């Protein structure tokens, strides 16, 4: 036991609050500032637009959180999004059935995730390389299936999925919100979620603690594929077509949002509330820059800068702790 100088309870409590809610405070301050200074920002219409714009990243961030928390990576999600959209469109056109199209998209993307997980868990191949290879493969498959161009969809009822609304809010926002809650519960309140964090914290120890490590990894990646596929299908519905060229850089957007939300890239640390904040910060900054008519080229600079700042902020926090 080491002697303590003297308990400074107030200070410690303030610090722990800052550590737990630091990013949220940053977001809140930013949000209020934007609401005050940027015209139209805090309008109902813009708020809905903002939520809609982050819905894709938000959905996939839910499962990316699990992936990162378990100490792995998934670069293939942008390919999965595209593949699901294209498969869905092609099958729908061929069969005339919306259900079959959606099922085909989901099945294809779940298979991609399962393969990722199986290769990483069973063959012990690095996740970065596995999912990068998978990304090339499924991009290729998407081009082959679609002949390299957008596949238009004829089923009007399918567009309802991405463009319809409930109580004034577009469907994708509802779906994203449900996923946030669902995966938040999974992470905190089920053995699946806790084991995921344990595997990221120390894989060998996890195995020796009786956790079925391989099985959980395969589940994590399969669910990741499934959710990315769902996001791809919703995107296809909003764009009324499956677009093989879309979503370049999407995986990195998702990972950035997670990191911004305090998820550790080495695994073992991550919270759902953090990820929500990360997603919102990314989306809000972009939204505000659009409102202020800042050209897209400069927006990239801002995005990169924010990510760097967030990571440095996290480092400083950890060094103090």
């Amino acid at each position: 036991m080491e002697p303590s100088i003297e308990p400074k309870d107030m200070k410690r409590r303030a610090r722990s609050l800052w550590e737990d809610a630091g990013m949220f405070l940053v977001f809140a301050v930013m949000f209020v500032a934007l609401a005050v200074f940027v015209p139209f920002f805090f309008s109902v219409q813009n708020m809905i637009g903002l939520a809609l714009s982050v819905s894709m990243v938000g959905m996939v961030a839910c499962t990316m959180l699990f992936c990162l928390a378990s100490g792995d990576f998934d670069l293939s999600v942008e390919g999965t999004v595209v593949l699901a959209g294209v498969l869905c469109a092609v099958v729908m056109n061929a069969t005339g059935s919306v259900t079959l199209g959606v099922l085909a998209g989901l099945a294809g993307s779940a298979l991609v995730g399962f393969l990722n997980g199986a290769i990483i868990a069973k063959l012990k191949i690095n996740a970065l390389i596995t999912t990068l290879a998978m990304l090339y493969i499924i991009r290729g498959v998407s081009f082959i299936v679609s002949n390299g161009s957008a596949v238009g969809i004829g089923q009007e009822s399918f567009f309802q999925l991405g463009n319809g609304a409930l109580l004034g809010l577009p469907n994708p926002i509802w779906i994203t919100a449900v996923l946030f809650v669902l995966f938040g519960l999974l992470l905190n309140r089920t053995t699946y979620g806790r084991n995921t964090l344990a595997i990221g914290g120390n894989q060998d120890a996890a195995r020796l603690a009786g956790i079925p490590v391989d099985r959980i990894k395969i589940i994590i990646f399969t669910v990741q594929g499934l959710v990315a596929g769902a996001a791809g299908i919703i995107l296809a519905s909003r764009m009324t077509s499956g677009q093989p060229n879309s979503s370049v850089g999407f995986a990195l957007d998702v990972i950035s949002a997670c990191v911004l939300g305090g998820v550790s890239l080495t695994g073992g640390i991550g919270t759902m509330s953090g990820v929500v904040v990360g997603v919102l910060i990314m989306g809000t900054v972009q939204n505000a820059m659009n409102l202020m008519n800042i050209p897209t080229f400069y927006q990239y600079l801002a995005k990169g800068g924010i990510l760097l700042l967030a990571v440095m902020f996290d480092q400083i926090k950890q060094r103090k702790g």
Partner: protein
Amino acid sequence: MSNQDYLHFHGIQKAFPGVLALDGIDFGLREGSINALVGENGAGKSTLLKILSGAYAPTAGHLELAGRPCQFRSTRDALQAGIAVIYQELNLVPDLSVEENLMLGHMPARFGCIDRAAMRKAVRVELERLGEHIDPTTKVRRLSIAQRQMLEIAKALMLDAKVLAFDEPTSSLTEREVRKLFEVIRDLKRKGCCIIYVSHRLEEIFELCDAVTIFRDGRLVEDRKDMTGVDPAYLVSRMVGRSIENVYSWRPRPMGDFALEVEGLEGRGLRGPASFSVRRGEILGFFGLVGAGRSELMKLLFGASPWSGQVRVNGRPASYHTPRGALGHGIALCPEDRKNEGIFAVRSVAENINISVRRTFTRFGFIHPRQEQRNAESFQQRLNIRTPSLAQPIGKLSGGNQQKAILARWLSEDIQVLLMDEPTRGIDVGTKNEIYSIMYELAERGIAVIVVSSDLPEILGVSDRVMVMREGRIVASVDRADATQDLLLRHALPQSEAQAHA
């Protein structure tokens, strides 16, 4: 202070946020002497070594070297002043060769290119001087821990280090390697080096050291310039601040039927089929040199690597091939390498305790936070786990408290057989005692406990019976009444050496 001191610590203080790790440390060390630093974990020994090596700057006070005050701003400064600290976890680059490691940072160059020939020659000379016959082009990855340690010493000597500090240098060496290390250290002493020796193994200190400095809670409690009148019991009592009558305090216990019977077990790390059995309530020791296959045997029994043969738990045949399967039969393992195989350093203490048992706390697939909290709290109290809070990341606790948390993890489960691999490695004397008490309590409750240890006094102290392993085989089973250090060692040593030893 005395003028003979080569190195002197003047009123060293080191404060971390919320903690005074060292306070008012004031003592000196002479040339040509071996000085022991002893104290429990957290007493401040490591912090002092880090200040010596320039890794930390003291909050107050300073060092004096050969009569001149000095301030190190980096480890490089300290090395240049002739101070080398050889840590338990060695600082070598595994994928570079021996020579590259030794010359790292000061490779001889000619016209901007590395002069390999000169480098090799210098390295060879230095290694020969230490009596090591290692090819300088070998990759460090392929060397044993003992050889790597010699490299660290060679590295220090090549920089003309005058002060050498060793932090737990023998924790993973075999008996023979320890002998050799001691010879080298004594030789350094004869050459006039000033040596600091940190170890938990008190017998080594009495064998090797000329002086001893005792730390407790960040303060210096005693500084002895010679070892006359000092005995282990005295050292321990000064270290923990109370006297510990008998560290092991073994008592006879009733035993039941066989809890675990192993017949013809084969698998990775074993060179022949292993057969043994252990009764309910028995503490069975496994002794052997490093590499004798003890840890491998434990890993097999825990299903961490594939095995063949017959295992019966409580008389019923058991077949499993994963740790999860082993747990299903009530077999659990506290691994040797706590940091890498036991704890989840970034996760909380509570999380570390509940990680395995929580599957039984679930309702409709959801875990039960209150039940988990209660479980963790009850074990915190029962095992006296010292932590500011159960939400604290476990990586910040001392080794002893981490071990207790791992014990709590398994005690939460309904276990029949507990395998403990090096249960007290790197754990201070006071906590060791508590770990032994927990072991006895478990045995009294009818659990079969298997203890693997390289620490002979510990094996003799806690076991009801000792199995000795040598070169991947079980070679002897010795009852407590017959077990002596000599007998166990004779069985454990390779046969050619055993004859030499006798």
